[in-house]
């Protein structure tokens, strides 16, 4: 007997914390993890709405989000490894060669 808005609020809070972590943290892996956190928050919202409207497609969508998140995590981490090899650092502030 929980109002649905609570779930949505929780999702919003998680998303906000994910964005904050994205903005504040310096380690690139942590930043990636904050992306995962944001995706999770979205997943929660999807499932909540699937429950509200009694549709299964919400959960199917969650399924796909997870797949994409996994693929993205894999490729992203590979890139991080490649960057680490050249830059010897995981600090995102030091990967700034594209500066004008």
């Amino acid at each position, binding site marked *: 007997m929980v109002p*649905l808005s609570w779930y949505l609020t*929780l999702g919003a809070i998680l998303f906000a914390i994910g964005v904050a972590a994205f*903005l*504040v943290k310096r380690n690139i892996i942590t930043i990636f993890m*904050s992306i995962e956190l944001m995706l999770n928050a979205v997943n929660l919202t999807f*499932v909540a709405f699937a429950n509200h409207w009694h549709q299964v497609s919400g959960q199917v969508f969650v*399924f796909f989000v997870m797949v994409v998140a*996994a693929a993205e995590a894999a490729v992203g981490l590979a890139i991080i490894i490649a960057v680490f*090899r050249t830059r010897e650092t995981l600090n995102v502030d030091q990967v700034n060669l594209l500066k004008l």
Partner: protein
Amino acid sequence: MLHQVLFIIFGVVCVAGALNLLLQRHPINSALSLIVVMGALALLFLLLGAEFVAAVQVIVYAGAVMVLFVFVIMLLNAGVEEHTRGSRVAIFLGIPGLIAFFIFMCWAIGSNGSALGQARIGSFYVPTQELGIALFREFLLPFEVTSVLILIAIMGAVVLARRER
């Protein structure tokens, strides 16, 4: 009643884990707290009647993706974050943007909250079979596409992480 208690417990766990991710300095701690968040989220999914999603969350997300993160952290021997000069834009534009976003969301949710009604345990329970049927009937094309996507991701990850000769 029980629903509310469970929700509050797991919700608090989620938020605490997320805050921990934000506040920890060492990335391994952040990773571990993220795993905690995912676990709590899986339980919340269960409360909402999504058993398959909850299982997949634990198995795939927490069990594979986060493990991958932990492996990479250990591989790269990522240490404690050192303090470097940040970006002023991120602080002065991003944080207010974030706060504004949060307020919008809360307002949207709050103003329509009563229309959303209640979520009962067991009001909508999706058996895996039903999910499978939906997945392989209406969502067949996206399913196949995602399988191709995974294949590409594998190849990409392998190529990108290859050591240069």
